[in-house]
């Protein structure tokens, strides 16, 4: 990088050895460090992490100038520095604060049955799960737009059926419901082996607990 500066005598040799990178390069370094660090970075830490001879304070100052008016800014937080979104664009950040929560066991089982057996009626889901399906579970899946109502079944009572939606396929990275792996594939991938430790109760607040323990007993074949 900066090795080509001609210098005289042996001081030059020492200088070259400890030559600091050009300011533009120092600015790049500060930029990468501030970007990757979860916490604001102090000038002292910056100097410690950058190569010998670098001037962290100067690098941050010119970085700050560079980001003026941009979508993100270099801001001072106490004694340290950080990159933050420009405050006027805060409204764009709403989606980042979505709280991810795992689907309940009842919901994921219901969803799995719909995906593998669609179109399927509520009674059929209950028959497969061996427990009644609460209204909330179906409602939740409908609201997430992972399932929708299918055709009515042409049997007495003409019950509605459920099918999965394109947005379900999208979420699970499937091109079509036919691409769902079968039991044989699951076994081959080792997914049928994950036997819970006996006696360890999972999600004790759920109603299907008894159900689960009997299921586990049979899980290995």
């Amino acid at each position, binding site marked *: 990088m900066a090795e080509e500066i001609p210098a005289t005598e042996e001081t030059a040799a020492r200088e070259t050895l400890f030559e600091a990178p050009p300011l533009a390069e120092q600015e790049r370094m500060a930029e990468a460090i501030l970007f990757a660090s979860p916490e604001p970075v102090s000038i002292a830490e910056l100097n410690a992490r950058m190569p010998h001879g670098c001037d962290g304070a100067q690098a941050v100052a010119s970085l700050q100038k560079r980001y003026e008016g941009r979508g993100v800014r270099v801001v001072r937080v106490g004694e340290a520095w950080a990159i933050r979104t420009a*405050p006027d664009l805060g409204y764009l950040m709403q989606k980042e*604060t979505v709280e991810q929560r795992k689907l309940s066991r009842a919901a*994921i089982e219901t*969803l*799995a049955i719909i995906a593998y057996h669609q179109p399927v009626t509520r009674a059929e889901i209950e028959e497969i799960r061996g427990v009644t399906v609460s209204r909330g579970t179906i409602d939740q899946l409908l609201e997430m737009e992972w399932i929708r109502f299918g055709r009515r079944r042409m049997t007495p009572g003409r019950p509605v059926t459920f099918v999965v939606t394109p947005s379900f396929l999208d979420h*699970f990275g499937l091109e079509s419901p036919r691409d769902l792996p079968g039991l044989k594939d699951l076994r081959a991938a080792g997914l049928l082996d994950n036997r819970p430790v006996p006696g360890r109760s999972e999600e004790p607040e759920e109603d299907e607990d008894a159900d689960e323990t009997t*299921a586990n007993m*049979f*899980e290995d074949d």
Partner: protein
Amino acid sequence: MSEDDLNADLPAPDGDGDRPMSVAERLAAEALIVDVEGFEGPLDLLLTLSRTQKVDLRKISVFRLAEQYLAFVERAKTLRIELAADYLVMAAWLAFLKSRLLLPPDPEEEGPSGEELAAHLAFQLERLQAMRDAAARLMARDQRGRDFFVRGHPETVTRVRRVAYSANLLDLMQAYARLRTRDEFRPFVMDRDNVFTMEQALDHMRGMIGFAGTWTDLASYMPPGWAEDPMRRRSVTAATFAASLELAKQGQVEIRQSDTFAPIQLRRREGRKNG
């Protein structure tokens, strides 16, 4: 197993004609034997052996490779090293390939020629080597979290809390697997598809008996569609017979049978014909 044992057992310069084995070759042969556990199957071993030929994989002598492999298996045998079955299967196949390569092609014989088989093996070795090189190049790339980095501080500007439920395909499949494997083990339930109950037979006969003024064969009381399948025929015969006994007990029919194993006949019992 000590080094001495190995050396003592490795005198035969097999594989390469009369030329005695060089020290390096002997060390290599030893390493192979000792490391047999370290190989990922016969193809991996063949690939390692092929390196001793020091040629481009496309120009490899499959014949010589087969000999090297068979020599390896022989040595393992003399050293009483247990080889896994797939190594022995490969040895048998290579012996076959060797004989095919030696003999002039038999026009009568079906199947691919020795050359075709050899070419395919060479292709497999080249492909495996290519995939290993590709894997090494892949791992040598700049990697996230090692060479380049993501934003360390995800923004939390406005905490609009919205709950999004998530699940991945693994969760989904595991849930389904859990349900389905439970299903496979449902308690035994009698399959009632092919069973005709006495109640059904009674209902059926009561409907017909009014017309049976004359002696009629019991078999004609069986409902249609039950006589073809042996399992159903057994069930319907038993049920109808039991039902006819029940009707006789109630005084509604009379039953007769002329001889052992002769057809059973019944007719409606008239109120006036008492006794």
